[in-house]
């Protein structure tokens, strides 16, 4: 059963990823991306990472897609059709991605010692929260705090860009 669900989700991800990059209407591309992100959340559920799946749904499928759609609407290019790329570019892109995929696949299958970390500790939300404020081994309080500085700097940077010209 699990395998069936896994292959179904993978197929959804593949098909909609392809549609995302090939669609010539930008709003549709954003919606296709939404399905990709939701299916990814499904894979997390399948693996038992409930917290990660929740984050994926609220943050990516909820927040980021809405942001993208807002940006598209605000710039007023929602209905426009994108230009088709020239045939040369198209072929070149296919060639490069094929080379990349084939190289990665060969290397992935040639590699045989992935360390398997068992799921013996259930990753409950409580544990995730505890490790976020744990300053010791395997604790993430320092990155957590650093992210807040990063967000602050990003906000200040956005204000600089958005500030009106001097009188």
């Amino acid at each position: 059963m699990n395998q069936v669900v896994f292959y179904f989700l993978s197929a959804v991800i593949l098909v909609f990823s392809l549609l995302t990059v090939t669609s010539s209407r930008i709003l549709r591309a954003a919606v296709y991306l939404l399905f990709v992100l939701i299916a990814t959340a499904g894979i997390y559920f399948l693996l038992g990472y409930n917290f990660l799946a929740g984050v994926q749904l609220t943050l990516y499928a909820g927040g980021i897609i809405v942001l993208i759609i807002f940006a598209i609407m605000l710039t007023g290019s929602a209905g426009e059709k994108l230009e088709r790329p020239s045939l040369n570019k198209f072929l070149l892109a296919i060639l490069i991605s094929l080379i990349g995929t084939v190289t990665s696949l060969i290397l992935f299958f040639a590699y045989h010692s992935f360390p398997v970390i068992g799921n013996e500790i259930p990753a409950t939300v409580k544990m995730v929260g505890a490790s976020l404020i744990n300053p010791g081994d395997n604790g993430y309080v320092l990155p957590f705090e650093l992210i807040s500085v990063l967000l602050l700097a990003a906000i200040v940077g956005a204000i600089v860009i958005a500030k009106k010209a001097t009188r």
Partner: protein
Amino acid sequence: MNLNDFIIMRHELLLTTVIIILLIAEVFSIFEKGEKSISEFSFGIEMFAILLFLIITLVGFVPSGRGMLFGGMYQTDEIRILMKNILNIGTLIILFQSVSYLRKNENKEKSTEFILLLFSTLLGMNFMVSSGDFLMFYLGLELATLPLAALAAFDKFKNKFSEAGIKFILLAALSSGVTLYGISMIYGTNGSIYFSDVSLTFSDEGLQILAFIFFISGLAFKISLVPFHFWAADVYEGAPVNITSYLSVISKGAAVFIFIILLYHVFPVISKEWTYLLYALSILTMTIGNLFAIRQQNLKRFLAFSSIAQAGFILLGVIGEPQLGLASVIYFVLIYVFSNLGAFGVVSAISNFSGKENMNDYNGLYQTNPKLSLVLMLSLFSLAGIPPVAGFFGKFFLFTAAAQKGFYGLVIIATLNATISLYYYLLVIKAMFINKNEQPVEYFRNDFFTRTGLLICVLGMIIIGFASFIFDGIFSMS
């Protein structure tokens, strides 16, 4: 946390405190309405920030031992503290050089934001240099990059500036995405993100090497090594001169530091592979940087390509004999901070005064501004590696480190490239001293801060060249 932990983390903690103080001070500035008071206020804040940063720089030199905090996510030792001190000195010089830029009418209102963003990027670099795992490394890299995009687009009402900002952020996002993919592959194949664990389990299998190549592309972008250098010239030309010098010196220096730490401590197992890789990148970077630099007329673009070429020379030390390599790279970056900031300081002063940035505008500069011409001459000599100034010793030790590993071919190519670079550095000097000009840039007097900044650069270039104990000290630490 006890007191000792605070001393170990002093660079980051103090800088965070200063960022918060400045942020609060800026909030109170809205109560001060009126043209004159805003101007006075922003000047006050600049002085305040420089003073606080001077204190941080001095406190940075307080000796403290090695240490590890937060379960190994934060590491420090003498050599990392030295690296952070070098970055601090460079940022201090840039602050000095930025005062006259921030005094301009259109920038007065944004001066606090400028300093805030500058300090945030420096904080990111400090954390990056001190990181003990890939998560902290990545966050430091992002914090060092994102605010820089806003700074590059600081004069956003000129098209060139917003172009610089958008180019920078798109390419930075792409390269950091590739790096993140590499990190995820490293995690997948090793089962840990801590440097100490990864260094034990890393092997030379294909997938791990692919992960490594993806991973270093983000750093190569920051160092502007050749396949990743396309952003450099356009962004350097478009951004304000102070930010250009920050990008080419501090940002690049920090990336080089963490690059060499990672290569020596996390990926020593595949040292044969990355030696070949960097060998090729070094030749490409030096040669292409030099060939493009010859053709440039705009001084900022010119310095951009020359700094790409310098990055190629740095790689010589990275793949050289380890102890001498590490010492010579740090020493070279220290000298590079002073020489490049000296050159950029003069370009920035002239651009602020007259808006001229082309090489032809520098014709006959010696007649009108002899002191500035002399500073620029010394800096360019130091960049080219001419003996009395420090740059010579920097290159000399880099070449020695590579020669000790037996890379004679590479050293010969590097020497040829150094000769080519001498040609184009001398072009600028010829323009200033020999070429005639009907209307040279008029005489002008710099303010106190610009002069102090340039004076520090000149002193640094001369003293570091003669004081051999500095190199010995770095050598014994590494």
